[in-house]
């Protein structure tokens, strides 16, 4: 297995002078190709900051991030947009779909921005829609479909350019439990069938249980790592809950 993403001693500080907040203290890990990695942590643990740094939306204070050998912290600001659209796919909590475009146009936009020849846009959109089971809503507008469908459209948009890494930020945050379940199955199938590498940030144990490996963050550092291995999802879910209990503070913190 080859490494797609590698983080080396990432640090991120906010503020200046004597008033510094360390959002990320020192984090290092790597992600293999085709892996489905979950990042969990309580609010303020630094998970969103970490995702922003990987996605080049934010810069790191120290350390290096390599994506397929390229150091993204060294890319010039002007070239960042091109790098992002060529290598990364995003799924956000609030879908980030454009309400002026239909579902199919929303997916096609990701292709056209990447200068895909006009002739191959439609077939690729149809093919992807087929895979994610959204073919029958292609001509509807985002406000005409359910949250789950919107998020599947966002997934389609994120992976249609075959990104090296799919970044998902709380993808089930705005969905009900049924839609969440369906979406997670979709993401899992993207991972399994399309061999996409996925990095998902969440604070929800159920969502995280779909991943194959989970990193737990606490106060800007990796607190623990959990691998699913051959466990069933239920067993993995229990394990996650246990870790969360530990992170949430053991008995010693309850007075």
């Amino acid at each position: 297995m080859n490494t797609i993403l590698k983080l080396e001693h990432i640090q991120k500080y906010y503020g200046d002078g004597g008033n510094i907040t360390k959002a990320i203290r020192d984090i290092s890990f790597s992600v293999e190709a085709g892996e489905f990695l979950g990042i969990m942590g309580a609010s303020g643990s630094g998970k969103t900051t970490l995702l922003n740094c990987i996605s080049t939306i934010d810069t790191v204070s120290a350390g290096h991030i390599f994506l397929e050998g390229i150091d993204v912290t060294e890319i010039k600001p002007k070239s960042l947009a091109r790098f992002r659209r060529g290598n990364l796919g995003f799924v956000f909590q609030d879908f980030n779909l454009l309400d002026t475009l239909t579902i199919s146009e929303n997916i096609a936009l990701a292709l056209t921005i990447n200068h895909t020849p006009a002739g191959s846009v439609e077939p690729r959109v149809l093919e992807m829609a087929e895979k994610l089971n959204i073919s029958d809503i292609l001509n509807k507008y985002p406000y005409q479909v359910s949250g789950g469908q919107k998020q599947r459209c966002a997934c389609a948009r994120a992976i249609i350019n075959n990104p090296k890494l799919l970044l998902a930020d709380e993808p089930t945050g705005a969905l009900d439990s049924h839609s969440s379940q369906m979406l997670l199955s979709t993401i899992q199938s993207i991972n399994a069938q399309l061999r996409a590498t996925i990095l998902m940030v969440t604070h929800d144990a159920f969502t995280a249980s779909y991943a194959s490996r989970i990193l737990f963050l606490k106060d800007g550092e990796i607190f623990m790592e959990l691998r699913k291995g051959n466990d069933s999802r239920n067993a993995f879910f229990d394990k996650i809950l246990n870790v969360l209990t530990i992170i949430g503070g053991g008995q010693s913190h309850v007075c």
Partner: protein
Amino acid sequence: MYAKLVFRNARRSVKDYLVYIVTMTICVTLFYAFLSISSSYYNPDIGSEYDFTLLSDGMKAAICMITLLLIFLIRFVNHYMLRQKQKEFAIQSIMGMEQKTIGRIFFAETLIMGMISILIGIFFGVFCSQFITAMLLTAYGRPYEISWTLFPDTVLWTVVFFVISFLMVGMFNTRTIQKTKIITMLSAEKENEPKLGKSRWIFVMAIIFELFTVWALITGVIKALFFYDSRFPIPVQLMYFGNILFPAVTLGWSFLWLFQKKKWDAQKLLCGLLACSVFNTFAAVSVPALTNQYYLPLGNGMLRQYLLYALVDLLFFIGALIYLASSFIVIWKEKSPEHRYKEENLFFLGQITSKLNTTSKTMTLICITLVLAIFLFIAAPILSGWAFGYLGARSMYDVQVFSRYNNVYEEKNLPQDNYEIITDFFATHEIDTAYDCTFSLYLPKKADFHNRIKYDFPVVAISLSDYNVIRKMLGYEQISLGENEFITQWKTIATEEERNSFIAEHTSVVTDGGTLNISEQSYSDEAMGETLYNSYTDVLYVFPDKICEELLPVMRNRYIITTKKITYENARELERLFTAEYPEQAESGVAYGVRFSTLQTNSAIANNFILQTGMIYGAVVLMVICLTVLSLQQLLDAGRYKYRFSVLRKLGVEEQRIHKLILEQLSVWFGLPIIAAIMVAAVVIGYFIQTISAEISAYIGFTALMLQIGVTVGILGILLLCYFISTWVIFRRSVNS
């Protein structure tokens, strides 16, 4: 405590209020500048022969009428501010502040900002009123002097007007804030486009258009039945048939659509009607144009009716074009995948169509208002040039006395007077005359005395000696005639074709004193005033004195040029004395009239000035309203756009491309209504110029006209550019923030 909050808020949020302050300042500046000349303290040096009071009341009325439009703008800008601040209001009410208090605080804030705008506006208004004074003094032919004065009554008027409008709008806002739910305020920024459905207003417009088309069709058929003649020239025949054919096609299309309703959508109907409205407009407009050219026997009422049809057609054209614009884009998008799937085009087209769908009504209103503004801008110099040119042609003499015999039915009642009352008045008031000529106008044939048919009124004659005295008065060369010869004298307004055809038909004239032949120099067309000719005629015969002695004198005129200009008071006094003795309609049936160049010039300049400034003020106000609304429409949605552009950014679109997209979007947003308005305005103005082309060439000249139009277009361009650039800068900032 609240007062503190108000002031602190106001100080902090000056930046938020920038749009508000700028718009209000423009309104106040315009209002003050134009109103200042009607101030009772305003006393420019325009000379003793002019009276200024005539101007101020008319001016005040004109400005106040137009200014009512500004209230609409104030209301719109307030709505914009309300939207901007909704989130802040929501937080304040969550914290426990009563909505009533929030409303009052907002009201106090806007009032403070309004007061600041009034102060700045009056300051700029003082500068701008200098331009108006310059315009005024040029109109009265005086050198321009700068006078920096603040007129207390104008300041009072301005403050009262704007404070009242602020209070009215403020009360309305307070009510709105009180009634809005907290949750609505809280989610105001996140709120998505209401719904991509289209409103149905266009169908109301279409029904009105259809009703007018039915009326036009009926009129067309009746007109053809009563007035059509197969000997008419081809353009006239086309006009008759066009006015039946095109309305019929329009209605036919609508019926066809009704039968095919299941298969055809409403857009197909509208597309057809759009095309029909263009043809209908041309057909309707051709009626007055051809009536002028070929002297068709259609009354003024009929011409106005056709202008009304043309107007309705044009309004529908604007509405339908804007309503369908987004559909056209969608069709084009569907048909050409290579354009649709080119880079960010999908996003761009989505932006445009969604905005067009939700605001087509506003866009149509903006477009119609723009047409009106452009028309006013261009028509103002034309009309005032016309009036001044006409003034020159009318008031060539300091005193003009004239008479008409239209209602005299017995020869003994014809005017014989020498109007000695004027001589006496001049003697008592020590007014010296440089030239004085009392003369008669004769009928070539006595038998024509009873001919009173309007279209066949007889041409009268003047004796050569009188004619030459008048020519001398005006500084023209003397002319001479051979034995039994005559020449013709023409009004400035007469066209060359009219003149040539008349001369060709009248190479000799049979008179009671014998037959005369036209001289080698057959005509003279120097301007000699309007009262030298008989009613309804544009031509005058000049006969040898000997012949005139044997003719029937029907009119008696007296023209005087004085050594010094008669003062305004003297002119009024003499006018009063004269009309007492020689009324406009004497018992004998003679109609007397007197004109003083002093009075004529004075009233003409005043009226003309009111007309011109009123039109320009109206045009500027309309233009400012349109451009402000256009720009605010975009800025209002900046929150929504910020989200959309942030999605693009996340998808990996470079900043450079985003800036380009913003520029393109604003260009379309400003460009579409402006181009549509220019197209329609070009038709309207072209038609307007064509109908009065005779007057334009006689009194203004086409080069001068083109120059004026050029200057106007330049000013409009600069105004547009200012608005465009400032909207662009603010838009970019709010999307990037």
